[in-house]
């Protein structure tokens, strides 16, 4: 059966509605009455990846309220937020939190410029003073520009009247909203769109050295876009993306053998390793602190206090590390070194080329990927239940290299099939990744405990050691469970279909 679910109308107005004594006649029987006006200072918010703008949503914060406007139904949502709000998990359950659930929970929502927000509430009344519809106008007044966003709230059974109202609004110059890009641009979000994984545009016959330079330039630019966010410590993703991008540069250098001369390659690898080295500890601490809740929840409550102490120690250490990283990023030596590297990759003539520099990109890529794929299979097929963990780690590393290669060169291959293969590989990697994470966590907990024990001799040490000991045992069990699944995960990846597709795309392939 059809119900009268009239859709709200969301619109931009280029001028305010002119009312006489706060009311405005629409037809002989209908008139609009202003019922409430509030003014506050406000900020538009989005994360560094412009997740909201890209998904046609506009988040506005005024006082301790969040207002989420979206082009899809129901249009406007609101809820309270804490006074220093940045992350989704800090919100209590509510309609805004619910609608934001597809954004990253570890990305900070950052405010744009301070803006004035004037909210006008209107009721559409008939001659019996019955409310027929409601309407809210949001005026965002910035230094030199203002926006009026409106949204109607239709009431059941009054479809026709809502249509009349909509017609009236069009006559007043209303334009239906299909994105909030202009609002964001005006409210302090005018920087270029950031993408951690942009589309890498490559051509099949470009010499390998040019493609290599291009990839490194792109990754370096992404790393550098994150520098300010690391220093401001908005969220941990800035450092993560920074490091991932630089690691990609290092992978390119180590995987693309023969593009640059050996001496050049060694020197470059050293330079990037030096840059990243200073951030290792900060990232480790970020990872521990991000895992805090999950790790704490593994233990019974009586053991929580011991762990809390450890995390407190991590927080203190993190502050120090952040200061050091900030100092490093601000230092002249870093800025000169990174700028020099960027400059170097801007022209192939700045680099000593190697024997494979001039091979066309497609055969170059195909050969590298195929070689890595056969290596993954070779290691994986020998793994049994008895194989030492070290071999499993090797498999993980080879899979990671294969994944990087496939992603670096993805533009050169048929997209649909490549996506499918990457997805299959990712499933295997997820298993191996968890296996590795549990192993690394055990090691670092052990290491923390022994360093801490050497420095601090206090009565709390026993409680902490107990908690950490219990956690290590649990992590060991989890690691074993992941280990048990590796053979199964690989055999799913090693299906005839996927073998065939790898061979088609990267061996006697459809491209050659």
């Amino acid at each position, binding site marked *: 059966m059809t119900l*009268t679910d009239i859709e709200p109308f969301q619109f931009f107005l280029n001028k305010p509605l002119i009312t006489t004594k706060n009311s405005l006649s629409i037809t002989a029987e209908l008139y609009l009455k202003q019922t409430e006006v509030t003014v506050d200072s406000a900020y538009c918010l989005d994360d560094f990846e412009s997740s909201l703008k890209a998904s046609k949503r506009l988040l506005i914060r005024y006082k301790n309220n969040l207002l989420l406007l979206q082009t899809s139904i129901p249009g406007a949502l609101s809820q309270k937020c804490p006074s220093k709000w940045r992350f989704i998990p800090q919100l209590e359950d509510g309609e805004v939190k619910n609608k934001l659930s597809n954004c990253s929970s570890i990305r900070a929502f950052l405010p744009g410029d301070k803006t004035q927000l004037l909210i006008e509430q209107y009721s559409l009344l008939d001659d019996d003073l019955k409310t027929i519809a409601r309407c809210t106008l949001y005026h965002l007044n910035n230094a030199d520009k203002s926006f009026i966003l409106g949204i109607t709230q239709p009431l*059941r059974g009054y479809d026709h009247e809502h249509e009349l109202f909509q017609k009236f609004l069009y006559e007043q110059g209303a334009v239906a909203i299909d994105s909030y890009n202009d609002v964001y641009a005006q409210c302090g979000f005018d920087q270029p769109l950031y993408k951690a994984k942009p589309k890498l545009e490559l051509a099949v016959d470009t010499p390998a050295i040019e493609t290599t330079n291009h990839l490194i330039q792109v990754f370096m630019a992404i790393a550098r876009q994150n520098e300010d966010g690391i220093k401001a410590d908005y969220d941990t993703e800035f450092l993560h993306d920074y490091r991932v991008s630089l690691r990609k540069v290092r992978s390119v250098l180590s995987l693309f053998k023969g593009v640059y001369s050996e001496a050049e390659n060694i020197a470059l690898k050293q330079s990037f390793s030096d840059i990243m080295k200073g951030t290792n500890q900060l990232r480790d601490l970020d990872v521990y602190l991000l895992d805090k809740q999950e790790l704490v929840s593994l233990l019974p409550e009586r053991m929580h206090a011991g762990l809390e102490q450890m995390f407190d120690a991590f927080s203190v250490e993190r502050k120090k590390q952040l200061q050091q990283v900030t100092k490093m990023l601000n230092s002249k030596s870093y800025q000169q070194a990174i700028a020099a590297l960027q400059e170097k990759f801007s022209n192939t003539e700045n680099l000593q080329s190697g024997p494979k520099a001039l091979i066309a990109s497609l055969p170059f890529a195909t050969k590298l990927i195929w070689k890595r794929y056969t290596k993954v299979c070779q290691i994986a097929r020998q793994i049994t239940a008895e194989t030492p963990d070290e071999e499993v780690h090797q498999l993980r590393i080879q899979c990671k290299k294969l994944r990087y290669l496939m992603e670096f060169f993805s533009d050169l291959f048929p997209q649909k099939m490549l996506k499918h293969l990457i997805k299959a590989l990712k499933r295997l990697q997820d298993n191996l990744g968890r296996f590795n994470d549990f192993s690394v966590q055990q090691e670092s907990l052990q290491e923390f405990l022994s360093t801490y024990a050497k420095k601090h001799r206090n009565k709390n040490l026993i409680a902490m050691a107990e908690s950490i000991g219990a956690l290590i045992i649990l992590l060991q069990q989890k690691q074993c469970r992941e280990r048990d699944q590796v053979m199964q995960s690989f055999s799913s990846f090693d299906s005839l279909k996927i073998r065939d597709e790898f061979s088609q795309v990267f061996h006697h392939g459809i491209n050659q």
Partner: protein
Amino acid sequence: MKIIACYSNKGGVGKTATSVNLAYASAHAGKRTLLCDLDPQGAASFYYRIKPSRKLAEQAFFKDVDKFTRAIRASDFDNLDIIPANMTYRDFDIFLSRMKNSRSRLKKALSALHNEYDVIILDCPPNISRLSENIFKVSDSIIVPVIPTTLSERTFFQLLDFFKENKLNKKKLLPFFSMAQKQKKLHKETMARLRKQYKRFLSTPIPFSSDIEKMGIHRAPVLSYAKSKAAAKAYKALWHEISNKF
């Protein structure tokens, strides 16, 4: 979904005021509520400023599920919708017979409303007839306003007899004292006597109040314009008592 009928076989006992305020209290408590104005005078709709629907007078109205649901109007208050019935007795007859007939489209319409509403309140016309029986059958509870006077007492027992004769479930009947004046000796005595005679009387009386009479001027439930007054508080308490029975 619960269906609550507000019924009295005697006029002028505060039945519509009760429907209107209980519907408001229910919606205010967060229950999605539909108030069906089955009284041909359409007073419940009037109090909510909803114009009588011309479509409803059409003979074909109840044959068409779509039209039935399309007649629903939002009130000015969250969670509260109204069917402005303005029904003729003939329509009412069809309404009930279809409600009873499990294959009728109206029954389907009502069951479709299941997902939409938590509470349906029926403001019924004042007469006992073969047709009223059907309301008594479909409702989960029947709220009966009783003025604590001898005449009202008599009509309430007539209703009780009607239930016995027709083998209807008496437990559904939830009488309460309406327009009660504590200062009147007669009211006090009648209330005490009736409570002894019939145990299922709701404990909250609705006082006689000029605030309730003013509903016609305000065209809104007492609970919305005089919520701190005794009458409004009594309606709220009455709703609380009724909803606790579910």
